[in-house]
């Protein structure tokens, strides 16, 4: 495996399974440090370039950096920055790299992080670009599954809701396809996973596409919920109809396997009912905590501290 020092983390597709496993193993090492704190990255600076607001992801990175003794600087939105004056991404990157040891980039356009990495002398971590890539989310999802269920291989994993526009599910599906899992891709017809993603993923694992959530819930080890957004529907009546069929309640969960876990990239609206929170299945807040740990691992790896 090539060393992680100085490497860009742009797409989950750049990470073969041994690399992913190594990142997850490193996260295990980081977990106690998340509480105890560490000076591992003392003197290191992380720049967060968020061309699109995402409080959660940014805070998670900042928290990870701080817990390892490093510092963070950057912008959370483009308002008031040189970007608003028309500076392009390539220039922004070549300026900001001088302020930091690593760049964390979030951008509304697809391929933005790839391009940023091309221009930057410093390593770049993609914190979400366009509709398709969110590799650190996928990694933290894998980490959550491994922590909660002991292993990823052998599981039945359901991805539910918006599989077409949902940013996290593409990266997650690609990542999961490197493990020996069975995927249940559960969505309304118009929010089905894009053909090319489905084709790629089903080359490696069994992936079943279905519109019926409730029929399959009892088979699932992982119930990965996503938000079905109203904006995606031309016909509001259609939305109202569909919405209910991809909603998870505590009652519905009584049909699920005893150890099944419920995950969600958050924020949720009402696709996961509040009464699910108190069940033992709910792991979405746990997921947030694993996210910090996982990002600590990435920062430490890329900056050569482990």
């Amino acid at each position, binding site marked *: 495996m090539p060393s992680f020092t100085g490497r860009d983390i742009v*797409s989950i*597709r750049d990470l073969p399974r041994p690399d992913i496993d190594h990142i997850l193993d490193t996260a295990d090492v980081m977990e106690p440090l998340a509480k105890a704190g560490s000076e591992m990255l003392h003197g290191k600076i992380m720049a967060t370039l968020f061309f699109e607001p995402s409080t959660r992801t940014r805070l998670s990175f900042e928290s990870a950096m701080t817990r390892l003794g490093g510092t963070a600087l950057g912008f959370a939105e483009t308002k008031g920055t040189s970007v608003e004056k028309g500076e*392009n*991404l*390539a220039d922004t990157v070549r300026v900001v790299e001088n302020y930091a040891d690593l760049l964390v980039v979030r*951008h*509304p*356009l*697809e*391929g*933005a992080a*790839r*391009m940023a990495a*091309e221009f930057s002398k410093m390593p770049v971590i993609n914190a979400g*670009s*366009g*509709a*398709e*890539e969110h590799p650190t989310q996928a990694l933290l999802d894998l980490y959550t599954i491994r922590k909660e269920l002991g292993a990823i291989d052998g599981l039945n994993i359901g991805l539910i809701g918006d599989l077409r526009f949902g940013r996290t599910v593409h990266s997650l599906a690609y990542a999961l396809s490197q493990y020996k899992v069975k995927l249940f891709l559960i969505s309304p017809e118009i929010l089905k996973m894009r053909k*090319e993603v489905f084709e790629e993923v089903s080359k490696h694992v069994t992936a079943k596409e279905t519109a019926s959530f409730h029929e399959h819930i009892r088979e699932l080890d992982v119930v990965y919920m996503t938000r079905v957004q109203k904006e995606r529907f031309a016909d509001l009546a259609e939305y109202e109809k569909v919405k209910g069929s991809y909603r998870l309640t505590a009652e519905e969960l009584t049909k699920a396997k005893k150890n099944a876990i419920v995950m969600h990239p958050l924020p949720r609206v009402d696709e996961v009912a509040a009464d699910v929170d108190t069940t033992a299945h709910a792991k979405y807040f746990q997921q947030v905590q694993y996210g910090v740990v996982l990002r600590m691992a990435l920062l430490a790896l890329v900056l050569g501290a482990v």
Partner: protein
Amino acid sequence: MRLFQPPTRPLHEERLVASGPFGGFRVEVNLHTSFSAQIQSLPKETLTASPSVKDKRTLHYKHDRKQNAVAMQHISKSSPGQDLYVRKIRHGTVIDHISAGYALDVLKILSIDGRDGHTVSVALNVPSKKQAKKDIVKVEDRELKPGEADKIALVAPTATINIIRDYQVAEKTRVKLPPSIGGIVRCANPSCISNSGEPVQASFAVLKEDPVRLRCYYCARIMEKPDVLKQF
């Protein structure tokens, strides 16, 4: 500007050859008729204004006359009953077996616009043995470098490149797409960073050649032949 009709007899060379030492080369295809090309060439007087150009042309005429019998013989050998659509050239490159209707895209991909002074001939929708119809491009006094022509496989995967030396086919190769291409096509994804005015060129991994299938290096979007063709 003159409008051409399908030839029922060999086209007189002047009607097909559009030379461009002074930037006078422009071809348009009218998609509504099976064979119709509008070629705008400068008046002959302009074309032959420089003595050297004039000399060259004279030379070609002479060679043509000398070689004509050979040319006709050659053509009737390879496609019986067919006429010579474009005259023989002495040195240069013949791009043959271009999928019918794509010759102009081929020129575009090769950045051949006639402004470098080479004589360029284009024949559209000519009958062929191997394909129902094909296009042919002949560039005089210029040998396409190996690899240079490969990009045209995007629109004409069946094309062959014939290097002509002393009227003979000296080398013949099938076009082949390189493993990755850049700078020819744009990404079909409007939210791709390569379409946003950043200082980068779209570039693609070639996943499949015929029909072509590309993956954007930046956004990973898959482009298929229709996506590519739309751009030409």
